């Protein structure tokens, strides 16, 4: 139990998707102009990461890993399909996003209205595929650990995008050098936020 909680905290603060690995930067920069929209995107990313990482974990564990097919027939114990993982992960992500979109539209129109346009965008968000690939690389022990890693990474992205959006709303009133306006200053602020998040590095969990 404690291990699961540790992974959750670690993926939010120490291995933050945005500040430590620069994943999901494209949508992070494009959608962070106001707090409202970034709230929607952050929620959608957390939601989708919480679903796709466990599904990809099962796929990796029972189909792709070296010897994973042994449950089908002992003959397959030598088969290693891990070279297929990119294409299968992206297929799972694209179809899960589609599925989530349909389910949300059916059962929660209010949530759909707020997530609406962001869901399809998420299929090509690096943070989602990155979550699955990191899950594969770090070899989590069981499904619960993988789920907590997925959710934690989502929450980390959520915090980062809310933070930058709030700062960008304020910075509109400051006197930024003309050449640095817009993209340039956003990069530098993100860098400074990254340095702030690095203070969590010393924590051993």
């Amino acid at each position, binding site marked *: 139990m404690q291990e699961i909680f540790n992974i959750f905290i670690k993926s939010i603060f120490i291995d933050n998707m945005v500040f430590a690995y620069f994943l999901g930067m494209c949508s992070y920069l494009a959608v962070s102009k106001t707090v409202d929209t970034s709230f929607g995107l952050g929620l959608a990313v957390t939601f989708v990461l919480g679903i796709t990482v466990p599904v990809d974990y099962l796929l990796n564990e029972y189909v792709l890993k070296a010897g994973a097919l042994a449950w089908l027939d002992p003959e397959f114990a030598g088969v290693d399909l891990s070279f297929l993982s990119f294409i299968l992960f992206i297929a799972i992500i694209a179809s899960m996003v589609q599925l989530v979109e349909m389910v949300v539209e059916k059962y929660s129109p209010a949530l759909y209205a707020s997530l609406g346009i962001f869901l399809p965008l998420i299929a090509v968000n690096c943070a989602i595929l990155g979550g699955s*690939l990191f899950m594969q690389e770090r070899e989590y022990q069981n499904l619960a650990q993988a789920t907590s890693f997925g959710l934690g990474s989502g929450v980390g992205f959520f915090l980062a995008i809310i933070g930058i959006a709030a700062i960008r709303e304020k910075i509109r009133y400051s006197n930024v050098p003309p050449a640095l306006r817009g993209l340039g200053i956003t990069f530098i602020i993100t860098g400074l936020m990254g340095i702030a998040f690095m203070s969590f590095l010393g924590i051993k969990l």
Partner: protein
Amino acid sequence: MSTEKKEREPLFSAKNLRLIKEPLGANNPITVQVLGICSALAVTAKLKPAIVMSISVIVVLAVSNVIISLLRNGLPPRIRIIVQLVVIATMVILVDQVLKAFVYDVSKQLSVFVGLIITNCIIMGRLEAFAMGNKPWPAFLDGIGNALGYGIILVIVAFFRELLGSGTVFGLQIVPEGFYDFGYQNNGLMILPPMALITVGVIIWVQRYRNRELIEEN
């Protein structure tokens, strides 16, 4: 019968050359179009992985641009995203296997970022914006141009981070040993991830200072 012959455009006409030149400067994918930032920053602590990454992106983008451009007339618009993803993913798997076979140590350093070329927005963006509406040859040049524009930023960032952070370029010692005796220190901060963002921020600053047209409203 009309007398005028349809003139064949020369392979390197001015229009085609512009496809390569523009992304290097005024229409750079990273600093102007804001595409493909994710992988650009994470691999730039040293020059070697940055160059390997740039070459991989050049190969993937040029080849998938040509494939999509060949398929463009027979491709139903509804399923185009899936087809594009499959083409990109196939190319990335090929590149990944080649890297694992020939430069295993760099491939280990790049870790998941080779896989993340699939979701690199530059590739999807160029396929969608250019390859879907142009012939294979211009699409090939556009792919090369945009990937070079991406690579050039990677190399600049990696050069400064490696020089200031480790005192080396390509693993060769550049800062003379004598400097260290006088108290010169490598700036360890440059190796850390946040400095990649700040370096790109400064590159954007310099570029926009020299090219006033690019300045944005707040």
